[in-house]
């Protein structure tokens, strides 16, 4: 997993960079909010970002708001790591759109655990997104069977969107996962099959009688 570190303090940046690399993450570091904003808008943007709050120009809070306003379907998981330690700061940070909040000086093990929580949330989000996509695909297939279908009043053939007349079973098989197995209903048996059998019996009798 790729993680972005945003902090204007070189020592904090270095400490975070070394720790995260040690834990097996791919790390990108930005010295300020403006640089981080450019990185987070890229198509291959990191899926998790660790943000400082107090930075010149674009600060962590503004960065957080910008990221949340992004049109991207999958937004990065944001963790504030900041010395802004008052309860009101934490509330403001989380309400601006951060997913988690750690107060400096931070404990490395706690940071590691919280990064793992972030990774878990991202996995869950990705799994849900896949599931939604599967459902949307299925729904799109079902939709093909909706709407107004022209059908012949006599032979019951259906006219498809390319103006061909098809047997109704061919049409449904082509527009859904349904398949047909052919049989004869009791009514049709009485109406078509029995008279036909009777006719064949008569033919045989007359042939035998004539022999």
């Amino acid at each position, binding site marked *: 997993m790729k993680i972005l570190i945003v902090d204007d*303090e*070189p*020592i904090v940046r*270095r*400490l975070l960079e070394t*720790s995260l690399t040690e834990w097996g993450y791919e790390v990108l570091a930005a010295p300020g909010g403006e640089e981080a904003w450019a990185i987070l808008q890229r198509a291959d943007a990191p899926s998790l970002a660790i943000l400082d709050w107090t930075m*010149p120009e674009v600060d962590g809070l503004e960065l957080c708001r910008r990221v949340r306003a992004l049109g991207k379907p999958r937004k990065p998981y944001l963790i504030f790591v900041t*010395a802004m330690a008052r309860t009101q700061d934490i509330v403001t940070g989380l309400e601006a759109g951060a997913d988690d909040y750690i107060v*400096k*000086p931070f404990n490395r093990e706690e940071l590691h655990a919280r990064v793992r929580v972030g990774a878990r949330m991202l996995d869950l989000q990705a799994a849900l997104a896949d599931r939604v996509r599967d459902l949307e695909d299925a729904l799109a297939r079902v939709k093909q069977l909706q709407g107004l279908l022209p059908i012949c009043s006599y032979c019951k053939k259906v006219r498809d969107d390319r103006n061909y007349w098809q047997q109704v079973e061919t049409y449904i098989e082509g527009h859904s996962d349904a398949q047909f197995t052919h049989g004869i209903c009791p009514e049709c048996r009485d109406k078509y099959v029995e008279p036909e059998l009777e006719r064949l019996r008569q033919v045989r009798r007359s042939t035998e009688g004539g022999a």
Partner: protein
Amino acid sequence: MLRGAPVAPDRCAVSDECEPAVDLESALRQVGGNRRLLLELVEVFVEDIPNRLRGLKEASVTRDVRQLERLAHNVKGSAGILGAAALRSAALTLEDAARERRLDSAPGLLTALERELDRVAAFFADPGWRTRLAQGAPP
């Protein structure tokens, strides 16, 4: 065994306490016992001290409270990582003063911060701390 590092008597007289400027055990805890990383961080910090001081003084003179608050805030963060409690506290006091726009107290607080920065710089300039770091048990 990392505690009780010797402090120069004149520094001791200036400072409120005779505690060493840096608690190496606390610093080592911050970096997860990674001595090489601590050496690297110290190097970055010491190199940057003149820059930081220049920036802080400039912000104080031009009465740029936002800049003063931010720079003091950054010193506070680094001091926390490096186990420099007195420096951290001096930076915090200046940060608070800047946030509350108490500019009259800024020069005095800045002097106190500079003194603590000097103590930290002196601590790291003494090669003895590297020896203690190499000999010290992992936290």
